[in-house]
């Protein structure tokens, strides 16, 4: 699965791929890379964190935010993630490089969303 980590360069295109320990035929067709795997693990961790938070403070802390919408914690996570996607896309379209600055903006955006929306 993660052997792409070592073989993901142009020099290896067309070469027969060595079968790694994690290369199960069941999902090797999904073309995993460690970056995208890390992304989905991050999403899974977010959901797990929300579950733990919900166990600690049940009820989802609903409130009426600055947008005038009734939101719960889950809504705020959704808005943060969707907004982050758009921030990254706009950054790519308008600036194009040093994407990690967009990521930092997204963290700030998520904090604002969780506090005020």
């Amino acid at each position, binding site marked *: 699965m993660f052997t*792409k980590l070592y073989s*993901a*360069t*142009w020099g*290896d*295109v*067309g*070469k027969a*791929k060595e079968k790694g320990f994690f290369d199960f035929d069941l*999902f*090797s*067709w*999904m*073309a*995993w*890379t460690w*970056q*995208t795997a890390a*992304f*989905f693990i991050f999403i899974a961790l977010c959901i797990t964190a929300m579950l733990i938070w919900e166990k600690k403070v049940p009820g989802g802390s609903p409130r009426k935010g600055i*947008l*005038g*919408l*009734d939101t719960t914690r889950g809504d705020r996570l*959704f*808005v943060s993630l*969707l907004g982050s*996607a*758009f921030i990254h*896309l706009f950054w*790519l*379209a308008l600036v*194009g490089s040093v*994407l990690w600055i967009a990521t930092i903006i997204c963290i700030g955006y998520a904090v604002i969303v969780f506090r005020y929306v």
Partner: protein
Amino acid sequence: MNKTINQKAWYFVIPVFVLVAFNAAIPLMTVVNYSFQETFGNNVFAWEGTRWFKQILLSDRFHAALGRQFAFTFIILLIQIPLGIGIALTMPKKGWGVPVCLILMSMPLLIPWNVVGAMWNIFALPDIGFLGHTLNSVGFDYNFTQQPGDAWFTTILMDVWHWTSLVVLLSYAGLNSIQPAYYQAAEIDGASRWAIFRYIELPKMKKVLTLAILLRFMDSFMIYTEPFVLTGGGPGNTTAFLSIDLVKMALGQFDLGPAAAMSLIYFFIVLLVCWVFYSLMMKNEARS
């Protein structure tokens, strides 16, 4: 009395989870994986980073397709919503006319999408089609296979024919749920027909109309089959809406990476609009 807490019923949700994983989550994850890589088939992939996203976001082709998509959705909403409300207002409220109207209205909704496309294709052909031939014989220079304007006209007409019924049925249901007392009160006050519509019927239909707009937005924003069969995105690329352009890129050119990036951007736009509509609906719900 102590209530026993038994959460075992959640296990019944497992089949749905598995189903959604196989038909939605896993393919979507694969699309994410593809969007960062280049492939020439044979299951060999090379890392490309955010290149495809940048390419799609800056490509004139994507901007054009997105523009066409928004224009199409906007035009059909502008036609179908008022037309649907209008038809619902003129439909009979009781008697034998009700089932006749309802069945007539639901007919277009029952026809498979590719059949609708094929029907309208033959119907509109300029040489042998009824619509095309008639228009040409009365002096219009109509040819939807060659003139972009005609292609748009036909596509919009087809969508209006196919989907206005949905708005009609929803509005009709909304109208029927209004208590007679409102109309009696309006009559006593001597309210005009317009005032009745503006201050009684329209507010009472608000919920179903939001639903109608949301459904029509979603369906028209993801439209594929009908224009594919009718015009195939042509002439040229003039009716190539987002999904048609996407399929051209993914299957026609086998550009899996850019196509995956494009479908993710497409998906985010749909998600955003859905969220906005959903929030507005919930806001209205909370107020009323």
